[in-house]
């Protein structure tokens, strides 16, 4: 028998260590609970303040100086137009670059530069994209200020790296055996990629795209830079009309002195969160439904 372990002192020490173990575990649980309770608090406050203002008039109206008649349709339409531009640009560009980088790119310094660019663009603060949009699209190309066209362009540059990165991961996940099989029956490399690899990678690419779009939908800062903060009383008709977007409307209303706008702001936040939740839900659904484990 090993006497060290039989002493009173050692028994106390073990008891103390076990207590520390329980304490540490509780601390971990506490950290999660505390983090999530922030989320719950935020949601509860927004629901409490905003739910009362969510009615048909609010959903179909446009901005107004009078809180009771102001609505979000104008901003929502601006958001939709902006997102349409963003998607139309970032999706094809993102997918095509992902294909090139993953399947065809030679190993050389230029390609390294592209990869470094993409990884860094994904982490550049969004406001910097706003500065780019202002300097290039508006001041240099003379595109109209406050328009969904410029907003969409700016957000597309921001979203593209996200799509490229997720697209590359999805393409990488397609096993080489599929490529070998296609090449072995005489398909050209381009045919192999477009007929076999891309369809298999598509769910993953779409998931990444939706997540990127959700992020773009919630962005405010870059759009502030390109002037999408104008007071827009009539919904925009096209991508070159002055427009606002939903997050911007939230920002503008939050600045109003009139307390009545608190309800509007919170209600607009609820609408925005519902959209984001739906998009993320769709992404998760797609991932679970189509994800293939090789």
């Amino acid at each position: 028998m090993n006497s060290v372990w039989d002493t009173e002192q050692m028994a106390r020490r073990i008891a103390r260590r076990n207590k520390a173990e329980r304490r540490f575990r509780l601390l971990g649980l506490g950290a999660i609970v505390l983090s999530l309770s922030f989320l719950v608090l935020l949601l509860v406050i927004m629901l409490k303040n905003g739910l009362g203002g969510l009615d048909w008039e609010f959903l179909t109206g446009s901005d107004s100086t009078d809180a009771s008649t102001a609505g979000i349709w104008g901003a929502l339409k601006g958001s939709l137009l902006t997102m349409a531009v963003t998607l139309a640009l970032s999706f094809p560009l993102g997918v095509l670059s992902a294909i090139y980088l993953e399947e065809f790119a030679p190993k050389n310094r230029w390609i390294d530069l592209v990869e470094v660019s993409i990884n860094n663009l994904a982490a550049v603060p969004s406001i910097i994209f706003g500065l780019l949009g202002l300097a290039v699209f508006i001041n240099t190309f003379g595109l109209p200020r406050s328009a969904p066209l410029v907003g969409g362009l700016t957000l597309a540059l921001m979203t593209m790296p996200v799509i490229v990165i997720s697209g590359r991961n999805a393409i990488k996940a397609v096993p080489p055996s599929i490529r070998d099989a296609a090449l072995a029956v005489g398909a050209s490399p381009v045919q192999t990629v477009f007929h076999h690899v891309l369809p298999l990678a598509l769910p993953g690419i779409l998931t990444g795209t939706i997540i990127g779009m959700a992020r773009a939908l919630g962005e405010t800062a870059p759009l502030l830079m390109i002037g999408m903060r104008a007071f827009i009383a009539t919904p925009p008709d096209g991508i070159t009309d002055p427009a606002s977007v939903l997050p911007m409307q939230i920002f503008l209303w939050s600045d109003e002195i009139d307390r009545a706008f608190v309800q509007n702001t919170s209600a607009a936040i609820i609408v925005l969160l519902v959209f984001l939740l739906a998009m993320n839900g769709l992404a998760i659904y797609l991932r679970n439904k189509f994800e293939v484990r090789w």
Partner: protein
Amino acid sequence: MTDTPKMSARNVDVYYGAKQAIDDVSIDIDTGHVTAFIGPSGCGKSTFLRSLNRMNDTIPIARVTGEIDLDGEDISRMDPVQLRARVGMVFQKPNPFPKSIYENVAYGPRIHGVAAGKAEMDEIVEKSLSRAGLWEEVRDRLSDAGTALSGGQQQRLCIARAIAVSPEVILMDEPCSALDPIATARIEELIDELKERYAIVIVTHSMQQAARVSQKTAFFHLGKMVEYGDTSDLFTNPQQERTKDYITGRYG
């Protein structure tokens, strides 16, 4: 003291979820000699070994039934901290912590609080490294990373780490399978020296190794312990048909 074996297992079953990996195993293990577990891979040697220091507790789906005693005391009622300090373990792949050689060995004594001060800790570290046959090679570079050693040295470091808390039993799960023949021979020598002080259980898939280092051998097959006896008897005169098939190389 002479009557109760160091460790004894009675009717042990181990399940992974619904799958049974060990079926009704009973065995006694004593100090002063080396016990080898042999058998084809997947037969449950590691699983059974890990039941002896309750490492299976760390696998959520694993469930152990039956009784295992250490010095006559049921280990399922012991504190795992204490049990694992008394029953040390060496793994298949050397797994030194990403710390210095000194800190690797001092880790156990430190968490268990068995060293009174720096001087005593130094002494424990030196003694453990000497017993593991590593002291001469590392005495001048105790602050180097443990991971910078060669594979064989790393494994001896892991053995030193295990003996630093003065265990009574040392469990080794294929400790040489990742090593070259020279490093293997070095570890086998070491096991031979250590058996005087500790009860040693070694899992091996090499029958030659079992024959070289062990005095007792247990043959496992499909989760059952088929045969257990003196190593020399088991290899020269197996009682069971399946043991004979295995040691003559019919499968494995």
